[in-house]
């Protein structure tokens, strides 16, 4: 899915390290993550945080992913990508505990 000509497979240690990094970032960014979730829960009265997050995320996908791929096109489709984005933010919100690393790892392996 990445916009790259080389197909580098990630090692298990690198995968674990990335998950640890993500959980640590999620811990410190929880107020923002919660604000985005709350904005999606109450989109009519408070749409700013959700719209800003969604626009930036779509921008990053367009920049770094292969937009000719059908999977990426589906991610960029505004009619279907809401559920996927909610799941990403919700997964981050649930992995801020001490064993959040294990929770996120299990979620990703089960995906």
């Amino acid at each position, binding site marked *: 899915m990445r916009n790259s000509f080389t197909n580098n497979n990630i090692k298990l240690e690198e995968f674990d390290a990335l998950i640890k990094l993500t959980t640590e970032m999620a811990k410190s960014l929880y107020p923002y993550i919660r604000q985005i*979730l709350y904005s999606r*829960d109450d989109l009519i009265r408070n749409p700013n945080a959700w719209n800003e997050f969604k626009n930036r995320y779509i921008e990053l996908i367009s920049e770094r992913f292969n937009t000719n791929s059908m999977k990426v096109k589906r991610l960029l489709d505004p009619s279907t990508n809401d559920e996927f984005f909610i799941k990403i933010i919700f997964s981050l919100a649930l992995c801020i505990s001490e064993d959040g690393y294990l929770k996120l790892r299990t979620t990703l392996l089960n995906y």
Partner: protein
Amino acid sequence: MLQNKFLFNQSSVSLEIIGLPDYSNDENKENISIISQWKLMIIDKPVIEGNLDHLKKIMTAFYNYSSALLNDEISLYESDLIDIKPENSYSHILLLKSSKPEVKPLKFRIGNSILADIVNCFDQLSSSNRVKIIYSKNFKSLKNKKYLYSFDTKNISNFLLPPLFSLCSIFIVSSAFIYVYERNNNKDISSLLNIKNELVSIKSIIKLL
């Protein structure tokens, strides 16, 4: 006897645990090993409270429901105390059933933000050294992996049957050709023998003459 009280906060949710230390085990006086009461307070929502069994059931409900949501499983959770079901991708309906028969079930709606706060409050409680462990988490792994299903007997037969069938058909067809080739070869040899016999007979005729 003075009871200990701990408060676990996460944004819009607070979890209050009230209880006593286990003096028979010489525990620290500030710890809680025997939970006598708990309260889950959510902003703009009714307070949920009960005894230790209720807390265990509610924690199990929230953990199972949230993991089902993340793993794309059917996320409806039902028990004798609490039902949680998704309304859409960003809101969930909670139905709390009281153990007292005269109290009607309480139904209210929570968003993903409150659900995350509740689960994080329970996480804080689980990881706290000062409260005895109530709920032991188990992380289900590799349950939904699609590649596991590729080892089904049905899939194996689908995978192995076509090449086996093609090998058999190749063998049958090639054996038929071998038979035809042998017959042709025999015919050639017999014709050569006939010619040789004719030549011998001609030679003998010439000798006689």
